């Protein structure tokens, strides 16, 4: 398959993730949608690595996976802390910093 097809799939996954971040209210699902966007970037990087026959893009993809794992641990820690303090698990109601 031509590389362009992979890029189109990557763009669609990114857009779906962005739409999810904008429309959902549960922080858990928002984290999942962030994962979707990071994975779309991964797919584009691996596709370009194939295009150039150069494995550097795959290294980038692996580093992105590390960063995503860190983001998940900290994000889930925040959600557990919110739950412990009996705060609502809803990003629309957590607006104390909203002035």
């Amino acid at each position, binding site marked *: 398959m031509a*590389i362009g097809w992979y890029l189109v799939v990557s763009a669609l996954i990114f857009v779906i993730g962005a*739409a999810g971040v904008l429309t959902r209210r549960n922080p858990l699902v928002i984290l*999942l949608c962030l994962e979707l966007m990071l994975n779309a970037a991964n797919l584009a990087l691996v596709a370009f690595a194939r295009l150039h*026959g150069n494995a550097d893009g795959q290294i980038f*993809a692996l580093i992105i996976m590390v960063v995503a794992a860190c983001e998940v641990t900290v994000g889930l820690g925040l959600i557990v802390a919110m739950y412990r303090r009996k705060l609502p*698990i809803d990003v629309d109601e957590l607006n104390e910093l909203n002035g």
Partner: protein
Amino acid sequence: MSAVFFFLAAIGALAGAIGVVMLRNPFYSVLSLVFHLISLAALFLLLRAEFVAAAQVVVYAGAVMVLYVFVVAYVGGGEELPSGGGLRILGPLFALVLAIELCIAMLGSALKGISGKGAPYVPGFGSPRQIGTLFLTKYLFPFEVASLLLLVAAIGAVVLARRRRGLEPDEEFETALHKPVSRRVGSMAESVGARRDS
């Protein structure tokens, strides 16, 4: 043949992504993301990124998703109300505009290589051997920084999610500590059961 596999994997990945966004129950969203990640690993295999595909399945679909499932089970993901007002309409609209723009940017660009199948395949491309060599020579510094980042994230998660609250005193513990007790409590006379009230 590879075209068939590509379309199967691409449809699976897109369906998984739509499932993550559309399903109301967070638990089903997580399961949908697992499906999406496995389909994406198949796409990586088609792109000859064997090690990345294996890492995707083992680390992402395995470890990270188990973490998600635990937290969803702990927090108890209930049904959420639909987002109200402007974002409900503006969000998908923004996504549509972004999709059109990205497709124009990628397919309308003058990059000639995009319509080809990529560079000729050399044996060993994307193998663990090549990735490991690159990580320990050319990309040694990012590799070490990534390990440091993982350590920082692990410590941060422990600090954030620990049981005792940050700087506020734990009232239950404090009152139990200063509760007046009889002098005999905890003494040897009490443990042998000597009953002498004083």
